[in-house]
């Protein structure tokens, strides 16, 4: 055994993925293919009173526009309750509802037509908080179901009131978690192709659960299941996300394909994806817990409201996992849990890695630390006292005796690896010093049921087929979502048959060739599918054995070894030769043996009593523990995760490379969920509409991750393996929250732990994205601003001038948008409608020079940030400029973005401004009629509005070389550590004379309506020694200045105190620099 199992095995699909040859859904291009676009609702909630397609139909190349009335089959769809439309009838329920679909010869024309479909509405007042929706007087969102409560799962164990009455302490806590977006890097895409053989359709695309898609499309189209063949394509990430939304997209494509007779492709932009795709459920959780002085849990009463959004979707399944696991891995005598899934008019919510567990673990593991604190025992002790042990009974009455209960093992291994005890002491001491940074360490633990459990039928399929030359096909009724399933299943086949992995081809699955293996969800791929593969491979092994047993002179398969491509006797007998696998296969082939076998695996029995929430919910469980080691900047509320130690009992490691990969990825998503991912939807309108305002972690945000894989082989797992994908994400939030509590002493009951949340204790709402503000307020263009249905670049003309003179000539004749690096302009163009003519100055070499003289440095307006950062003279004389420019965007942005563009675009957050103002830079503006200079501090009038005239180009930035020595300090604050929109920046330059501040320049960025000096504060510091005392003296006056300027803004509650802190920190840094 262990031929290949447990090794670090390279992915079998790696080659095509590192060469760009893997075909993802949007890479598909077919002859005569049409492109589809969707027409979203303009408002989140309302009745549709009129749909006018007349103008849209006139767009060149539009082949078909389809509406609700064109649906041939079942109009309303859904996994349990059919309450959702792929195309709505006469009412919209959330902002991602689709009213019409268009097919056209080009993508652009399809989108243009979607823009031109005019819809009239009678708005309805939406309900956006499930706690409002649940009230009896609330308007019914789907009146046919007679309640906004979609489901209620109760769980009852023991006597809750008795439990509370016997407790020394009873506490009650409320927790909440936000929406969470999957943010797979590949946006959704589907292509439907007419299939004349089945008189149905073949469907390609980014499909997580092909059998579900098949069923939904068949219903919608009024066809049989065997008329829909789902072939999928390489899937660019899913995490539970490419299920329902893909099914509806597939319905739309199939309908358009039917109506046009042609292949139809629908690919989403990121904005489409964020608007329409479902999210993780926000949970509102009330935990009431009774416990004794020693920390022993006596009773737990839990009430949870889950926001299902506009549709029920997977809420039935997601919340069921929550009701099973809500008490955590603790033995509690008396439990009463109630969970309700509730309709609102928010984005609907459904499956996402974790599936109803990250929310409850955040609550219940934060709660455990609080209980420990109240009892004066350690977080470890409270878990040791109450945690599951072999034979423990869960809240649902299940006795844990069929697998190894390894809760203590996972916790202890994680704590030892994280050096928990030592860090606890070390950080306690460090935090007592009351410095700017506080340090924290905290942990969490969980148990998790494997596979679907009692939520549904749990069976799956696999086919293993050996060819006459000994090569092998494997395919399954499950799907490769990027997790490495093909590799694992090929490994399992290779292990059973003792062959080389290279002999195996994993076939692209298609629903027409194998029985429905259920969805690839619930971390069930390995444990369920792996067993199906073993069953199939074992069948073939036995058939081959029967052919060759005489040659080996054995009677029982147990007498043989299948390894390294040969079959041999266990007891080596000299005159009996081993047989090569391929020779055995060939012999079996000529003997007429069937070398293709079906593996069908049914999960072991589970049970559930709906009324009391009692039963054996899952056939086995996994255990995990995360330890978070963090640092908090108390000046800003920013959390830095230094290290996450993640210990997971996986039963048995099948592929070490893949298993560790799951941990790295899951932990990083868990970190994002906890700290930076903040899906912003206000009154049903999605504000987080692209990855610049729904932030996910970059490579600079996540610290070290230490994976620990623990093996306690499971009796029902393939080679003893269980699950790993989801547990890796579910534990991180509580670990970070507990570390935060340790560091700051403040308990948080809500995630995400944004800057504002950590600093103020509340989560402030953000307004629209900066780039939209730019478009709407722009003084540079005079176009009618209309929201496009799908953002893209339309109707532009570009002019390439021969030289600068020609460029200025062109500008004098007509109003042109100047295109330099394009890193702002191209983004803004996607939002604009109407015609635009751009003057491309990116080729003008004259603007790309940096000239250095004794007195000044002149930077051409076309110089990129990368050019500026790497210039040694700039670094020597203007180090603050180098530092500020290096925080702009990403390296790719800095390689293209120009200083001229940054200045002229004049965003309040433009990072080059504070240093340019501090260093007294002047901008040289040239037009056909002459040249003028304007100083950096006078250039911006207000947000995005500057002194430049429409016929001028900023050709140079001239900065005088300082005549004396300045100390400098520059801080930039963003929500992430890279690719940020700057929240606040501060630049300070100070010269000293006889140890007194001689000159002082303090420039703020992203604070006021433009970057500017704060001269009143500079004056306070001048002619004084720079000391902590003098620094403290600026606090009150600075507060007054900021309060007067921005006191009424949404962000001032945070920006005011934080800017003061950052200013003080920047000044303190100068003291430190001087030694």
């Amino acid at each position, binding site marked *: 055994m262990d031929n290949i199992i447990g090794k670090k095995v*390279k*992915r079998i*699909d*790696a080659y*095509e*993925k*590192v*060469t*760009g040859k*893997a075909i*993802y859904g949007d*890479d598909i291009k077919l002859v005569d293919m049409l492109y589809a676009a969707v027409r979203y609702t303009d408002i989140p909630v309302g009745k549709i009173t009129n749909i006018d397609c007349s103008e849209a139909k006139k767009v060149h190349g539009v082949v078909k526009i389809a509406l609700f009335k064109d649906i041939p089959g079942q109009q309303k769809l859904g996994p349990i309750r059919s309450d959702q439309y792929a195309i709505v009838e006469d009412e919209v329920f959330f902002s991602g509802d689709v009213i019409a679909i268009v097919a056209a010869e080009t993508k*652009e024309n399809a989108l243009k037509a979607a823009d031109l479909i005019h819809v009239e509405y009678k708005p309805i007042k939406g309900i956006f908080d499930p706690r409002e929706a649940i009230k009896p007087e609330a308007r019914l969102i789907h009146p046919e179901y007679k309640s906004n409560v979609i489901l209620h799962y109760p769980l009852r164990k023991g006597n809750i009131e008795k439990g509370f009455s016997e407790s020394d302490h009873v506490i009650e806590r409320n927790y909440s978690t936000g929406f969470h977006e999957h*943010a*797979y*890097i*590949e*946006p959704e895409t589907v292509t439907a192709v007419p299939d004349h053989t089945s008189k149905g359709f073949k469907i390609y695309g980014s499909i997580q659960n092909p059998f579900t898609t098949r069923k939904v499309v068949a219903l919608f189209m009024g066809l049989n299941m065997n008329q829909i063949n789902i072939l999928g394509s*390489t*899937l660019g*990430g899913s*995490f539970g996300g490419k299920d329902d939304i893909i099914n509806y997209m597939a319905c739309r494509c199939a309908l358009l394909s039917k109506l046009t007779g042609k292949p139809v492709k629908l690919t989403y932009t*990121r904005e489409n994806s964020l608007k329409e795709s479902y999210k993780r459920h926000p949970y509102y959780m009330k935990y009431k817990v009774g416990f004794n002085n020693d920390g022993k849990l006596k009773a737990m009463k839990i009430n949870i409201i889950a926001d299902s959004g506009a549709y029920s979707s997977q809420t039935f399944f997601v919340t069921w996992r929550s009701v099973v696991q809500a008490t955590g891995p603790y033995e509690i005598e008396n439990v009463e849990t109630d969970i309700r899934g509730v309709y609102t008019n928010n984005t609907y919510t459904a499956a996402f890695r974790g599936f109803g567990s990250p929310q409850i673990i955040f609550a219940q593991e934060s709660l455990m630390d609080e209980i420990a604190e109240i009892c004066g025992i350690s977080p470890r002790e409270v878990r040791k006292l109450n945690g599951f042990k072999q034979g423990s009974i869960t809240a649902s009455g299940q006795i844990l005796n069929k697998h190894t209960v390894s809760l203590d093992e996972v916790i202890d291994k994680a704590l030892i690896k994280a050096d928990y005890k030592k860090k606890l002491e070390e950080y306690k001491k460090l935090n007592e010093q009351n410095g700017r940074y506080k340090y924290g360490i905290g942990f969490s633990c969980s148990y998790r049921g494997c596979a679907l459990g009692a939520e549904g039928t749990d069976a799956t399929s696999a086919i293993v087929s050996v060819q006459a030359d000994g090569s092998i096909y494997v395919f399954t009724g499950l799907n490769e979502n*990027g997790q490495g399933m093909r590799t694992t299943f090929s490994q399992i086949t290779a292990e059973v048959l003792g062959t080389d992995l290279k002999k195996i081809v994993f076939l692209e699955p298609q629903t027409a060739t194998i029985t429905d293996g259920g969805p690839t969800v619930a971390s069930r791929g390995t444990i369920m599918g792996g067993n199906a593969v073993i069953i199939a491979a074992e069948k073939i092994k036995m058939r081959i054995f029967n052919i060759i047993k005489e040659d080996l002179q054995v009677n029982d398969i147990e007498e043989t070894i299948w390894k390294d491509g040969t079959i041999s006797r266990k007891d080596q007998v000299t005159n009996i030769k081993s047989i090569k696998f391929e020779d055995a296969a060939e012999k079996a082939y000529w003997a007429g043996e069937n070398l293709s076998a079906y593996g069908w695996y049914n999960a072991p029995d589970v049970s559930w009593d709906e009324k009391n929430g009692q039963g054996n919910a899952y056939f086995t469980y996994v255990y995990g523990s995360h330890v978070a080691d963090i640092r908090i900047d108390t000046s800003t509320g920013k959390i830095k995760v230094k290290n996450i130690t993640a210990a997971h009992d996986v039963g048995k490691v099948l592929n070490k490379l*893949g298993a560790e*990969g799951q*941990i*790295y*990825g*899951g*932990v990083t998503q868990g970190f994002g969920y906890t700290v930076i991912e903040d899906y912003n939807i206000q009154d049903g309108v999605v504000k987080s509409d*692209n*990855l*610049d305002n729904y932030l996910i972690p*970059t*490579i*600079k945000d*996540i610290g070290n*991750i230490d994976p620990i894989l623990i093996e306690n082989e499971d009796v029902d797992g393939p080679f003893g393996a269980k699950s790993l994908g989801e547990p890796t994400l579910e534990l991180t939030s509580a670990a970070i929250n507990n570390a935060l509590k340790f560091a700051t002493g403040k308990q948080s009951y809500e995630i995400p732990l944004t800057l504002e949340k950590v600093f103020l204790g509340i989560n402030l709402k953000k307004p629209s994205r900066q*780039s939209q503000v730019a478009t709407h307020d722009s003084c540079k263009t005079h176009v009618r601003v209309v929201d496009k249905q799908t953002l893209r670049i339309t109707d532009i*003309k*570009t002019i*390439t001038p021969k030289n600068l003179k020609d460029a200025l000539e062109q500008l004098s004749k007509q109003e042109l948008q100047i*295109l330099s690096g*394009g*890193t702002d302009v*191209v*983004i803004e163009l*996607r939002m604009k409608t109407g015609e635009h003519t*751009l003057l*491309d100055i*990116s*080729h003008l070499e004259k603007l790309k020079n940096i000239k250095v003289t004794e007195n000044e440095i002149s930077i051409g307006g076309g110089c990129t940030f990368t050019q500026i950062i790497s210039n040694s003279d700039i670094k020597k004389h203007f180090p603050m400029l180098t530092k500020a420019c290096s925080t702009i*965007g*990403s*390296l*790719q*942005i800095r390689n*293209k973005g120009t200083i001229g563009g940054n200045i002229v675009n004049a965003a309040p957050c433009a990072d080059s401004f504070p240093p340019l103002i501090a260093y007294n830079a002047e901008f040289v503006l040239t037009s056909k009629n002459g040249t003028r200079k304007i100083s950096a501090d006078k250039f911006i009038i207000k947000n995005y509005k500057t002194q430049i005239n429409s016929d001028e180009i900023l050709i140079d930035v001239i900065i005088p070389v300082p005549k004396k020595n300045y100390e400098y300090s520059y801080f930039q604050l963003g929500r992430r550590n890279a*690719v940020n929109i700057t929240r606040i920046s501060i630049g300070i330059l100070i010269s000293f004379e006889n140890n007194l501040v001689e000159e002082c320049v303090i420039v703020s960025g992203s604070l006021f309506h433009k970057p500017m000096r704060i001269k009143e504060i500079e004056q306070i510091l001048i002619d004084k020694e720079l000391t902590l005392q003098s620094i403290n003296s600026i606090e009150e006056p600075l507060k007054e200045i900021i309060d007067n300027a921005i006191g009424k803004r949404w962000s001032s509650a945070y920006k005011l105190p934080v800017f003061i802190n950052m200013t003080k920190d920047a000044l303190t840094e100068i003291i430190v620099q001087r030694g």
Partner: protein
Amino acid sequence: MIKIKINVNGKDHELEVEDSMRLLDILRDELRLTGTKEGCAVGECGACTVIMNGNAVNSCLILATQANNATIKTVENLEQDNVLSKLQNAFVDEGAIQCGFCTPGMLMSAKALLDKTPHPTEEQIKEALEGNLCRCTGYVPILNAVKKAAE
């Protein structure tokens, strides 16, 4: 429509394209080099990263006119004579790939770095890859792969 000359992976092309086309569209739709991916269209995710005149850039933010006379390298150029580059092999060996959608962009950002800085520090690697989002791998294996390729 505008006429542009562009050298992609060593081959010269003269193309007449719509003014609104981005370098990304030219690569994917005109030249059928679909290894370069679109993930956000606003320069945030880096899936569309290619090397333009030696620098990693977001091909979704470059209009056709800006790409005129440029030399472009895409992921399709990394494998030469059916042999994977050291960088590609390192990605395979270290498990730096899961769904693979960010991989072409990651590889091109890493390639641009290693071309200029054959032995980068960890900080330099992070800086080079800061504009490439990955949702599957948690970055650790990617960082390890680039380190390995630089050995």
